[in-house]
């Protein structure tokens, strides 16, 4: 996993399948393994209020946000410029391209068994290189008196809660969020992008 790569948020206009087809076709033609992530498939917050309203008004989604590796978008843009004769793939598809500085999301977890508490703590310790957790709050309660089953006075003998804000490079953030999201006891928010001004 590279943490050196730069990523851009490119907004494409058109049919989602067509845009994805262009991306995949371009990669095949170039025989490259550049990374790209359609935002909607990776829970990345993108839409502005205006975009959301326009989409709602037209009842279909025309603008698609793609997180795309720097080399990929640069090469693609150059190729499209060079070939204005193309009927189905043109530069006009690309509405904007902005560099991503970093990305963040928040998480919270609670578990009532040591096994799961340990699992979560272990996940939080194995952070990708560019990823940092800020405002991390961890709370561990153990109460041997609360062991066993109860009907009217339920309490857990073990309780681990944590929450925090995760920041890092977008590709690492996407990867790490996926790991957290796979755990049933961790809740994550959508990824927020911090774009270079």
């Amino acid at each position, binding site marked *: 996993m590279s943490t050196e790569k730069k990523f851009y948020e490119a907004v494409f206009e058109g049919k989602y399948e067509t845009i994805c087809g262009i991306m995949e076709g371009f990669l095949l033609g170039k025989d490259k393994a550049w990374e790209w992530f359609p935002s909607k498939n990776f829970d990345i917050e993108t839409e502005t209020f205006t975009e959301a309203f326009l989409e709602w008004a037209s009842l279909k989604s025309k603008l698609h946000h793609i997180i795309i590796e720097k080399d990929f978008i640069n090469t693609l843009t150059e190729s499209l410029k060079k070939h204005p004769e193309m009927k189905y793939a043109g530069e006009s598809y690309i509405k904007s391209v902005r560099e991503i500085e970093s990305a963040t999301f928040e998480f919270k977890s609670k578990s009532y068994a040591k096994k799961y508490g340990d699992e979560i703590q272990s996940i939080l310790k194995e952070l990708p290189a560019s990823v940092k957790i800020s405002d991390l709050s961890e709370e561990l309660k153990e109460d041997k008196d609360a062991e066993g*089953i*109860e009907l009217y006075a339920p309490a857990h003998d073990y309780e681990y809660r944590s929450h925090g804000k995760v920041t890092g490079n977008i590709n690492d953030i996407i990867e790490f969020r996926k790991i957290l999201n796979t755990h*049933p*006891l961790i809740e994550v928010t959508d990824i927020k992008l911090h774009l270079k001004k």
Partner: protein
Amino acid sequence: MKRYISSVFALFILFLGTPGILHAIDEAPKRSTERKIEVSHEKNDQKHKETSDHSEKAGQLHTKVHHAPHIDAKNLSLLWIIPFVGILLSIALFPLIMPYFWHHHYGKISIFWWLLFFIAFTFYFGFNVSLFYLLEVYLLEFIPFIALLLALFTVAGGIQLKGSLAGSPKVNTLMLFIGGVLASWMGTTGAAMVLIRPLLKANEWRRNKTHIVIFLIFIVANIGGGLTPLGDPPLFLGFLKGVDFFWTTKHMLPPMAFSMGILLVLFFVIDTYYLKKEVAKPDNGDTKEKLKIVGIPNIILLPGVVLSVLASSFNLGTAFTLHYVEMPTASLLQVGMLLGITFLSMKITNPDIREANSFNWEPIKEVAKLFSTIFITMVPPIAMLKAGSEGPMGAIIKAVINSNGEFVNSHFFWATGILSSFLDNAPTYLVFFNTAGGDALSLMTQHADTLLAISAGAVFMGANTYIGNAPNFMCKSIAEEAGVPMPSFFGYMIKFSIPILIPVFIAITFIFF
């Protein structure tokens, strides 16, 4: 544990021995006849109360020679229900607001309400009256109640479903159906305790399994318990008040089958939907264990529990009379048999089974500590309801009758149900049982639909919230410890009980009431 077993054994001997010794003291009529006589006595007392000037405390206490002292609740202040409301609200709110404080101090809080009630009651009505109610409540109601729960809990805790189950919609639905059927015969708590772990284990590989626990709460921990007095505490309280054992089975079967049928179909659809969303698939190739039930001796003991409850209807007369309270020999026999079953279950059960079920006595201790207060503090509100529409709680009665003075069964169903959703359903059942007159014979015959509405409301709507019925919290707690993310109190209602259960209950209202 040894100390406990010895105590149970001693109590067992005591209860088995006492009836024989005391039977000679008093020959009394058949229990069902006694009930009729009690009713007629109450009516006579009621008439007498209206004319008598023998009362103490401004007409609120009436004592008749050879008859039990009663409180005349017609002019009682509503302040007398504070301890009852207090203990119910404590049970409802403390686990949500301060769970750890409640866990460690619920017994003290219960004692606080008990003392508040008993001291005030004794001071106001005198020791003679409070002793009568104390004995009546504990001997005739609380002891049989706790003995039944103890036996059911002990027996169910000795049964375990072992082996590998495929966490498929078909198997899960079948398990919930079996649990729903078992709930009426081993209690909702027992059935939920037996079923929840195998169900969680079968679905361990699945990421989306919260709905499985939710439907277990709906079907096994609540609605399934509607067929017999063994199923859910409110129905057993009804049985103690004179409702026939099989009246409940016969009348509750249609609404129960209807709601369980809808819920099982719905569960199958939802479970299939979530299964399709699963990315990982189960890996049980080499570790597949044959499915089996262990703890067979305890399954054999279950009919014994049914028999012991039925035994309380036998014609055995009165064992003894203690301060106006007549203790039926059959009740003693019932308690003795239940304690015997408990003792036997403890002796014959493989400790591994109990360990696998995480069996401990805490749930029974909780029920004992909390219900000992609920039962005694319930005396004034029940008396107020018996005082009728002109009594201090006449507003409740007027809310469930129409302008002709007839019961509106749909109102009974929803009023009992909504209160049972937030307060414990056992006392709520009794409140509405008494709102409807409190006469089991009349409620089983001319007002059968009213009693059905009360029973269905109390049993079914206990599933509306985590605090509606005791096993709900137990299921939530066990599931959370098994790594299942369970919704919050309001999350449970908004995401599950309101959209799923309320439409079913609306349909029940139109079809049955």
